[in-house]
């Protein structure tokens, strides 16, 4: 994850508390989505950014996961994201995200 984005996530957690922050990821590859999810839960795996060694354990979802999709306006989702849903390997992304959440997320809800 971009170092600047790591800083933004870290700042948001300090300001609002980890229990009040949800991270939504839009990466187009399962591997990239998983790395971003790992960064905001277990810490930066590259040990390069502000979240290196910081286990935030945040709730994290991909924009194509049902947990996010069911929460947003369906017309807006259709307009903004449905095209990408057709292109992405959604099953692979969901599986990767679930693996990371099961292992590192601190909020089991």
């Amino acid at each position, binding site marked *: 994850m971009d170092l600047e984005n790591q800083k933004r996530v870290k700042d948001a957690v300090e300001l609002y508390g980890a229990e009040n922050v949800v991270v939504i990821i839009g990466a187009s590859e399962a591997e990239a989505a998983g790395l971003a999810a790992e960064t905001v839960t277990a810490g930066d795996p590259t040990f390069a950014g502000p979240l290196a060694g910081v286990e935030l354990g945040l709730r994290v979802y991909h924009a194509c996961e049902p947990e996010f999709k069911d929460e947003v306006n369906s017309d807006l989702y259709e307009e*903004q994201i449905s*095209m990408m849903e057709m292109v992405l390997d959604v099953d692979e992304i969901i599986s990767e995200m679930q693996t990371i959440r099961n292992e590192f997320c601190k909020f089991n809800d």
Partner: protein
Amino acid sequence: MTNPVLKNASYILVHAPDMIVHNGTTATVEKKTNQNSEYLEKLRDSLRSYDEVVNYAPNQVFIGNRTPESLNDLAMPWYTQPVKGDRYGKFGEIMPQDEFICMMKISDVFDLVKLSQSFTTELKTKLANHKLFSENEINLLKEGEPEETILSLVVDHHSEGIYHDKKLVGCVKKAHDFDTNLNAHVMFENLVAKASGVLAVKHLMAQTDISFDEVEYVIECSEEACGDMNQRGGGNFAKAIAEGSGFLNATGSDTRGFCAGPTHALISAAALVKSGVYKNVVVVGGGATAKLGMNGKDHVKKGLPILEDVLGGFAVLVSGDDGISPVVNLSLVGRHTVGTGSSPQAVITALITQPLDKGGLKITDVDKYSVEMQNPDITKPAGAGDVPEANYKMIAALGVKRGELEKAELMNFVKKHGMPGFAPTQGHIPSGVPFIGFAIDQIKSSELSRVMIVGKGSLFLARMTNQFDGVSFVMEKNKSENVCAENSGYDESQVKRLIADAMRKLAENLTE
């Protein structure tokens, strides 16, 4: 008003293994932050030889010796499938590092580049065999400096070392004592951008019938900035490259837009030609040392060689209608506006379907799309996936949403209207422009009739805006009938002579 045409395009690569280690940001940042890193230890052993780079199929496609589609016949990863390559191709060449170092010296008008005597002597002979270098240019190398002088400039005077085969063979001096925008590192990067731009122009002019004197304007569209502490991006690479290329009747300016820069520049060039402001405009982009080995850590970690080992460069000649070359249809220009939004769906709509709608065209009416043509051999192991394929899937998916394509046809569309990525990850270099050379040829031969060039840029990296950016244009078969076509047998000068003769005879009759 004339129709602007894309007459010729050139593409060059420069093998730059020592620059990966000494000038690429991934390696230089690692040296600063983690001197004993495993990556730096393994880096040297992960570099490819010049022959390996020449025999690498995507590089042969880039310089025009193979078609992009030929990569479909090679199993990936392509670096494990060497082909028989040539240094020179239809569109340009793959220059070895030592010769390019000489180009940096030849391109330097402030005596900042110093090369050692032994290196200079050896390379003068080598460069004399290059058909695009004149004796005058080779004489600019002068005699070289003693090796102790070079070493002292690097060790004691903050010069940036120039290395070849792990040896210090020269340096770039700082151009000011305090100005960070003129320090040796920045001057090195800028001279590389200039020299590689000049090399691309050399190959462009070798292909065309337009003379050097007929070029009136140059637009440079790399991602570097030249200037001093009072005007960081003051410019102007374009005029510097015009001077280095011998365009005595040209001026120029720099256009920037991250990776979208070249497409912005080509649209501007086409508009300048169409309006009649200039007759012949050269659009040129040189290479970036900073991006050498950019994803090197991922490559080395996975046991791959460093595949980002070449600088890229390109040049395109935009001229008035010659009746043959593909036309830039300026009524089908797409643009990502401030109000477009950043979702992929919004971006693709703005860049692909909005311009097509202006011409009443469907997504399938464009034969080929040239998008972000990054080589997937490089991007996949770095976790970025197959970038061109993702772009083609997005275009196809939008076609499905618009009812112009069946969902089951999605992957067929990708194959038919797309192509495998083959360009090095040099930012602006892979963005839209790599296919223009092939498009010119294939549209001329009627293999294709319409090609869309799409450039996208990540403006947010400069922290001035969160905006994404992109522009697109369409190249079409030339259907002009009222133009003096090269092969039509119509000789404009002969017609003028006949009219002049007739007028003279009329005048003589009147006076009699």
